[in-house]
């Protein structure tokens, strides 16, 4: 008997079932089909403007910085300003996200834009988030050529662009967006929910920002 059959057999023996019970199968299939939501905190069940405001407040509370711009054309200048203000070299790493690609990067003459996955040599990376979650000020980022996962973790400064319309109240709304875009039961290779910059409390329970991931998280909301 394979390990698989042994483990499943032991589980069934302990629960006292056969594994062929139709009623149990129906129960499981129904839960997977209906995906009940359970308890949703009232905190983020607000009109869109309230969700945007809450998202900004929560993101700042958890250590991110937030700025708002009118359109994608204003993003490159905002990125340059961020780098200058922190005395960082005028270089970024970015994926192939169309919304970002269409912005006027050429207007920032001194800004070097490197494309593709990060090799660890980038001080700043720019990504586009799939959604924002107002309840906790959390960003949702998807893997793929548009936004390589390495950019989320290797650069010291992570600048994340987010469309105001993509700010939702809760995680559950993000699951609904994903199912609509990718189909039910289908996930990107990696979905990163990011809430603030990387941190550790492992030495004497003192929280320090900038552990292995970015030391700073800057969110640019496009209205």
């Amino acid at each position, binding site marked *: 008997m394979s390990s698989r059959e042994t483990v499943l057999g032991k589980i069934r023996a302990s629960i006292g079932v056969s594994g062929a019970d139709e009623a149990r199968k129906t129960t499981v299939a129904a839960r997977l089909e209906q995906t009940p939501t359970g308890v949703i905190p009232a905190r983020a069940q607000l009109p869109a403007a309230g969700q945007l405001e809450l998202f900004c407040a929560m993101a700042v509370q958890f250590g991110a910085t937030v700025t708002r711009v009118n359109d994608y054309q204003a993003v490159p200048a905002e990125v340059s300003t961020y780098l200058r203000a922190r005395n960082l070299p005028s270089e970024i790493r970015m994926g192939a996200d169309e919304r970002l690609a269409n912005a006027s990067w050429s207007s920032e003459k001194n800004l070097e834009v490197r494309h593709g*996955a990060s090799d660890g040599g980038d001080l700043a990376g720019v990504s586009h988030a799939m959604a924002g979650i107002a309840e906790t000020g959390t960003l949702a980022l998807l893997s793929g050529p548009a936004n390589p996962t390495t950019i989320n973790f290797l650069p010291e400064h992570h600048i994340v662009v987010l469309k105001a319309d993509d700010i939702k109240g809760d995680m559950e709304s993000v699951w609904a967006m994903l199912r609509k875009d990718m189909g039910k039961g289908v996930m990107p290779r990696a979905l990163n929910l990011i809430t603030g910059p990387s941190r550790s409390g492992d030495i004497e329970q003192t929280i320090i920002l900038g552990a292995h991931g970015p030391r700073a998280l800057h969110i640019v909301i496009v209205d």
Partner: protein
Amino acid sequence: MELAAKHFKASAAKALVDVQLQKALGNVEKGFIGKRQKAADALPEFDALRDNARDIKNHVLAHLDLYLEEYERNVIASGGTVHWAETAEDARRIVLDICQKAGARTVTKGKSMITEEIALNDHLSANGIEPVETDLGEYIIQLRGEYPSHIIAPAVHLNKEQVEGDFRRVHTHLPEGRDLSEPVALLGEARDVLRQRYFAADVGITGANFLIAETGTSVIVTNEGNGDLTQTLGKVHVVVASIEKIVPTLEDTSQILRVLARSATGQDMSVYTTFSTGPKRTEDPDGPDQYHVVLLDNGRSAMLGTEYQDMLRCIRCGACMNHCPVYHAVGGHAYGSVYPGPMGAVLTPSLNGIEETGQLPNASTFCGRCEAVCPMRIPLPKMMRHWREREFERNLTPLTARYGLKFWAFFAKRPKLYRLAVSFGVPLLSLFGGSSRRFHSLPFARGWTRHRDLPAPEGRTFLQAWAQREALKQEPGQ
């Protein structure tokens, strides 16, 4: 690690007089209790979420076989491989085999209690593969040749001066005169040293906080980002997870996530909650070429359907040990097992048998704080009591305790004799208590009175007080 639970009493006695340890343990209360309370208070739905989290896991455990099959189907559909491991030995063999096939010389590791449970690092090292722990706390204890003393804060038993000493001892390529007096400098140094290790590693090994049946996804919840670098930069990603980590859907995951970080560190969300589904896809510029999941039983299936089943709801947040007065006093290493504190006092006997571990469920005052804060509402004191009963039934309880219980039972089973004895005993003890109404020293109980006084009984016995209360109730007009 070798199970040393039978030495709990001796280890605890040593821990109580260990000055460094006692200083470090002060950080447990400072670092966790107030933060958890604040986070819980800020969410009016917190207790309703706990109820639902409990119900979700109960539902999963009742249908675990079917959800595991669904999970496996979806991992395979997304291009991953599922390996079933009945025992720790099976899991070690499977992981080593994956590493060897990948030609691995070094592997990086995200923080994972399950790989501690199966002692994976020793097995890889013995076979010529170097495991590198990347979580800051895990990295520190790996340098020291120790094991975690806490399930989410592995190095909580250490002070910064000790960490500085370890870094100076091991990072000999760095200038001797560098300033490492503050935690921020220590973190920066670990970050730089480990950066190089991620890129050099062939395989990245992580645990999982959840396995989602609906999508075949593994989820890790971290703050440092080391788990993500581990699973993104290696050519092969191996997830080692025990079978009870299954949740049905993304929505169910969200319910439990809302209580996990709040209970653990008092955060609303941990910094990184990462959902991984299968290996790198055709168009992906990064991610692992292979994605393996090792599903470990190691005694858990035998807990199903028993009085210890509720323990399988545990999500390893650490709240029980953060709130445990015994843990605060002696720290995690005294328990002599991978899982310390109240959850360990229940789980360790379940996984390793009560013969060697009987002292752990006895290392509790039954104050009930662990159950009061458990996000999954696991009745930990009740289960520790069950283990004490199993221990007694099998004649494993120490002789003094057995005779003490027999002596008490002799009177308890003879109510008249019992009342007679206490009606003499109580006034007598009250008399001996003297004007301070306390005993500073008692025969047969010196261990107790060495550290505190025993209050002398005062007034009437409980039965006398009860009888009077009942009599008052009977009186008309009351």
